[in-house]
């Protein structure tokens, strides 16, 4: 199908000199008395109802029911009884004063058919009751409601049974399948540790766990891990997938967002603090609107700032502002409701009870946002800042004055404003004005404020932009002559030298609400009827409209909304078992499969709700079940009976996500730099790799211990993500990712075999093993290496095989001069031994077991 504007343009070019607008008049009305059922209804049924009927109602118009037809569609009334000349229905079929002719496929209606419609309308558009089909009520009434929309009913559990095990066993029993035995203790600890905090258990933790043979040992390990600061990191990872967190804008420019991490830190802190899921959600959706809000509450609204931003030259900012609101709307639907609300942007949802009107009603909640930057200092940042701020600002001003910035900038602002007010006149400054709007957040508004009334941040935003962009109008050479690149360098050095409070990207509500319009066919520039904020009709819990974002967030957690809790527990569940009880964790609509264990899903949902949305409680419940602890071994009969492990007669081995494979390498080698909630970093690229960019500038790798931070802090550059992440199925963070792929490719093998950062990890592991117990036996060393990397003891066969491997390496004299000259020697360790054990590290970090949660 062609886009609308491609079907027919309203003008044609007739030679070079004759440019005339084409007009078409409409056929005359038919003569004689028109009968609806005989003459009109066949036209509607044959040519219109496929799109304007009960299943689709495109553009909100239905021509199969009298009441709907007379009400019209999103573009307004279609039929004006008594006046066919002004009726939109007639315009559309006749191609009169409109760009598109209906029906859009097949032959157009004949003049005779249009004449019939006109005469019918002119005669009063009489539509007898019996001529209408379908019920006049809502489509959903009378039919059985889809399971996900039904209220949550808490099923009962026999006393003494673990609820999770109870429901799983009932199903297994009915299928005649026996559950696997519980996994070995070491496997359990590794599984638990990787699942709860995303890091492997240390050899010390393994020993303590095995020595603590008491019945409570497992429970104690659970509590230790739930209380770890790394718990928040691990669980934040899954949340950040859903809220499409990234460190850059996306699209062509893909500018870096240096402050985005502050929102990520909020998520980690909130999860570590045990914040209830209701508050956790409410603050992200509407932290700016809660009573007595704190700066942290505002930081939470950074959720809304994760949208992509198109700053490409020549784009229409209004179009992409619309796209961002669309993104916020569908993200809201996916994250909390598990519904593909975004499908209703252009037309009514094809399968679920979500109309296009519903979409724009939810859209209206987010249509009134305003972006802002705020200072969001971490504890300990403000004191040093306040102490030095006067010196800092004086230095700052000196740099600007030395480069004559105030005067030049004033002139540039004046000319830009002038061009902005008269497009097409001052060609050189036209672009400057456009680019100012695109490349800053609110720069055009700031230059309208007199300099003395700008805030420090506003003033700097425009000045820094000016220093970079003055070259657009005067040329790069002139800007260089003025010393602008140097001034920018000095300022950035100054900003590093003086302490700065952290900043956060937030949103707040606009002062006055602007009207929101439905968009015809989802097109940003085709306004339909006006809509007010309201929750989707099929899910509405009260006749009262829900007023604002805060109320919208509260509605998610109201008694009558069954989706929020079901969707949330299912997403937590899938991280422990590899798939949700509802496999399509992103889609709880009618097209998704029903839950494998509906009672279990509802029990968990009810429990989450009744525990004041206690997230840690939910995690604890799942990991303390017998079902979670089962062995992942696949017996042959089970492989045939239940290959996808839907019935949960066993656990599943799950390939770890990219970030956790990274973490496991860093943690087991001892390189890991723990900086919970910190800034993003850039890992090294292999030597000779060029053309790798971050927001238009070269990717400059981080140095020092920063490089060994957890994988979740790797800077995510949307248009050019760090290749390792992509290779291991990281989402692209453009839309919510509710679950990850787990592919298995040769590029993954090349990455783990040859990546320089992983190579550092093997060697660090070798150093760790060799210096741990310098005089230990081979067996002792290998055990330690296995404990570190795989969380288990080597088998007898493995001991002898590795011994043979190490002996071979030593005998070959690897590590003699020239073999690894590029690597720094380690004092007190024989280089040949180190090389041999580096090989052991390489092997251990490449086996399937290393990249897999057991």
């Amino acid at each position: 199908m062609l886009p609308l504007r491609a079907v027919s343009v309203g003008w044609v070019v007739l030679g070079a000199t004759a440019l005339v607008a084409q007009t078409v008049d409409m056929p005359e009305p038919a003569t004689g008395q028109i009968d609806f059922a005989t003459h009109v209804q066949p036209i509607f049924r044959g040519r219109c109802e496929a799109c304007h009927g009960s299943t689709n109602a495109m553009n909100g118009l239905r021509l199969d029911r009298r009441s709907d037809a007379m009400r019209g569609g999103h573009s307004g009334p279609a039929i004006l009884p008594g006046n066919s000349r002004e009726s939109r229905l007639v315009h559309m079929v006749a191609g009169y004063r409109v760009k598109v002719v209906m029906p859009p496929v097949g032959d157009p209606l004949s003049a005779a058919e249009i004449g019939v419609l006109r005469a019918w309308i002119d005669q009063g558009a009489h539509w007898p009751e019996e001529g209408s089909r379908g019920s006049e009520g809502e489509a959903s009434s009378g039919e059985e409601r889809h399971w996900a929309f039904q209220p949550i009913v808490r099923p009962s559990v026999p006393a003494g049974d673990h609820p999770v095990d109870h429901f799983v066993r009932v199903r297994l029993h009915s299928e005649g399948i026996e559950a696997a035995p519980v996994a070995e203790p070491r496997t359990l600890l590794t599984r638990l540790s990787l699942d709860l905090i995303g890091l492997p258990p240390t050899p010390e933790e393994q020993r303590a766990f095995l020595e603590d043979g008491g019945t409570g040992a497992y429970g104690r390990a659970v509590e230790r891990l739930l209380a770890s600061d790394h718990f928040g990191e691990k669980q934040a990872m899954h949340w950040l997938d859903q809220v499409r967190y990234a460190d850059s804008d996306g699209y062509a420019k893909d500018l870096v967002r240096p402050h985005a991490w502050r929102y990520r830190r909020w998520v980690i802190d909130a999860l570590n603090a045990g914040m209830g899921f209701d508050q956790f959600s409410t603050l992200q959706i509407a932290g700016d609107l809660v009573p007595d809000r704190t700066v942290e509450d505002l930081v939470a609204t950074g959720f809304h700032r994760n949208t992509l931003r198109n700053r490409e030259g020549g784009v229409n900012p209004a179009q992409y502002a619309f796209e961002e609101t669309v993104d916020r709307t569908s993200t809201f639907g996916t994250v909390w409701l598990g519904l593909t609300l975004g499908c209703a942007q252009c037309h009514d949802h094809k399968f679920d009870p979500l109309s296009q009107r519903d979409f724009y009603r939810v859209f209206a909640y987010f249509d009134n946002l305003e972006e802002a930057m705020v200072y969001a200092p971490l504890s300990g940042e403000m004191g040093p800042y306040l102490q030095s701020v006067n010196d800092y600002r004086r230095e700052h001003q000196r740099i600007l004055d030395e480069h004559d910035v105030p005067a030049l900038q004033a002139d540039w602002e004046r000319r830009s404003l002038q061009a902005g007010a008269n497009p097409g006149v001052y060609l050189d400054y036209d672009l400057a004005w456009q680019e100012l709007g695109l490349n800053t957040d609110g720069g055009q508004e700031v230059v309208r404020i007199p300099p003395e009334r700008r805030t420090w941040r506003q003033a700097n935003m425009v000045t820094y932009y000016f220093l970079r962009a003055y070259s657009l109008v005067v040329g790069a050479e002139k800007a260089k002559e003025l010393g602008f690149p140097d001034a920018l360098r000095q300022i950035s050095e100054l900003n590093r030298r003086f302490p700065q409070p952290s900043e956060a990207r937030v949103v707040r509500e606009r002062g006055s609400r602007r009207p929101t319009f439905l968009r015809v066919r989802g097109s940003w520039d085709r306004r339909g009827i006006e809509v007010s904020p309201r929750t989707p009709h099929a899910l509405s819990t009260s006749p009262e409209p829900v007023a604002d974002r805060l109320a919208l967030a509260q509605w998610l957690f109201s008694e009558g909304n069954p989706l929020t809790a079901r969707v949330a527990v299912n997403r937590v569940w899938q991280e422990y078992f590899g798939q949700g009880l509802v496999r399509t964790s992103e889609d709880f609509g009618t097209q998704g499969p029903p839950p494998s264990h509906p009672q279990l899903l509802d029990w968990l949902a009810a429990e989450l709700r009744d525990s004041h949305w206690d997230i840690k409680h939910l995690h604890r419940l799942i990991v303390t079940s017998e079902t979670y602890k089962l062995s992942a071994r696949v017996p042959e009969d089970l492989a045939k009976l239940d290959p996808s492990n839907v019935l949960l007669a066993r656990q599943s081995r799950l390939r770890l996500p990219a970030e956790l494979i990274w973490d496991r390498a860093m943690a087991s080698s001892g390189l890991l730099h723990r900086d919970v909630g910190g800034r993003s970093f850039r890992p090294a690229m292999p030597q000779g790799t060029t053309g790798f960019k971050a927001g238009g500038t070269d990717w400059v790798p981080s140095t020092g211990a920063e490089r060994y931070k957890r994988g979740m802090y790797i800077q995510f550059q949307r248009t050019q993500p760090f290749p390792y992440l992509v290779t291991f199925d990281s989402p692209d963070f453009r839309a919510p990712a509710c679950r990850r792929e787990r592919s298995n490719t040769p590029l993954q093998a090349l990455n783990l075999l040859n990546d320089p950062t992983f190579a550092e990890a093997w060697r660090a592991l070798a150093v760790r093993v060799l210096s741990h117990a310098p005089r230990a036996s081979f067996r002792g060393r290998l055990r330690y290496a296995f404990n570190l990397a795989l969380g288990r003891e080597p088998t007898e066969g493995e001991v002898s095989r590795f011994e043979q491997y190490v002996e071979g390496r030593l005998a070959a004299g690897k590590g003699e001069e020239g073999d690894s000259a590029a690597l720094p020697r380690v004092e007190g360790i024989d280089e040949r031994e180190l090389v041999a054990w580096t090989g052991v590290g390489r092997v251990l970090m490449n086996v399937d077991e290393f990249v897999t949660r057991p």
Partner: protein
Amino acid sequence: MTLPELSLTRSRRDFLERTLFGTGLGVLAHLLRVEGRTAPVSADPLAPRQPHFAPRAKNVIFLFQAGAPSQIDLFDPKPELHKWDGQSLPPSVASQLQLAFIQPTAKVLASRRRFAPAGRSGIELSEWLPHTAKIADEICLVRSVRGESVNHHPGQALLMSGNPLPGRPTIGSWVTYGLGSESRNLPGFVVLKTGSSTQGSTGNWTNGFLPSNYGGVLLRSTGDPILHLSNPPGVSLEMQREDLDLIRELNAQQLARSGDREIAARIAAYELAFRMQAEAPQLIDISDESETIREMYGLNAHATREYGMTCLLARRLVERGVRFVLNQHAQWDHHTNLDKGLSAKCRTTDQPAAALVQDLKQRGLLDETMVIWAGEFGRTSLAEWRNPSDPANIGRDHHADGFSVWFAGGGIRGGQVIGRTDELGLTVERDPVHIHDLQATVLHCLGIDHERLTYRHSGRDFRLTDVGGAVVDAMLA
């Protein structure tokens, strides 16, 4: 008991099960018996698959010209523009144009290029494309292509993935997802790149929500041709083999212990990685190419050397069974200094692109290889003049409503022109071809019904052509 099997990973596992596990865990013994350390090819998710119907083409080479080449100066002569040269168009006309940077009042800029009929078919081409003129009878020139956006990133996203918003799988991913690849030792979808980076960046070859097996793999011109292809310092080939042997043994034991069939796929992936380490350096070592070939692709001349190399590599890739090659050349975005910039681009690309088609033909590969030459959109017949004091500074803005692309080989009927723009090059006058139609046609030639090649994600079935697309029958041989 089992739910509908939706994910590909799942079906791949089933496939593995059928092919490898017919005798239960016998695969372990089998794997350990395998000579030459090669794992069964069938463990590869890129194993060749049957198309929907008999294909006309097997492979695709997409010569992507990023930045929007000016069709007005290269492919679509508009002599009528001379009557309007230097004047503004009537507002009623100009206001209909979708423009990115300039205002509707901008002046008309007639092309300064001479056009002449080429080949037996007499397709009119610009004087700046002398080599393309030599393959005129091989190409199908479509002059009536329509995009949806006049901005680069959305334009490139539409061309590559069928949607102007980012995040969908790209055409190369869809094709390898649909057909797998004949190449055993190289990725199925390979990307070559010259010129600066493009607005679409890695989004131009992303697998989007398809499994990462189907993402484009960038063949680099410096350092390792494939990222992480070389062993790290201190690891010799012999050590690499020793390590891989030990890794495989441990994996095989783990497979026996756990019964997790995914491990068999990992064993296979490591073996493929090892073969790739051997194959990729051979691929880029062109010492086996004759002097005639080097001369033909322009490897001996400064202007054409780099692009010529990528075109030659594209041929070497399809010779080795790689399914889809994206060869991307950037910087056709001539808002300013049109004459200087465009002539330089033509000097760089014209000869190698034509050489590729001729070379494929002389090797008998053109019938099964489709070559596509396209930018994300075209340029306006109105001038963009950012620095009015400098006459040479003049250029053209973005234009998506009627631009030109060409196809050759692989089921395409050469020596013909499809579609027509109006006399001022403002809009399509006859046979509009939407980007989705082009995509549907590419898939059709490969034996794929574009409406049936779908992938379920986020609750719906997606396809390359979104909700549109119709095969352009007139393009077919």
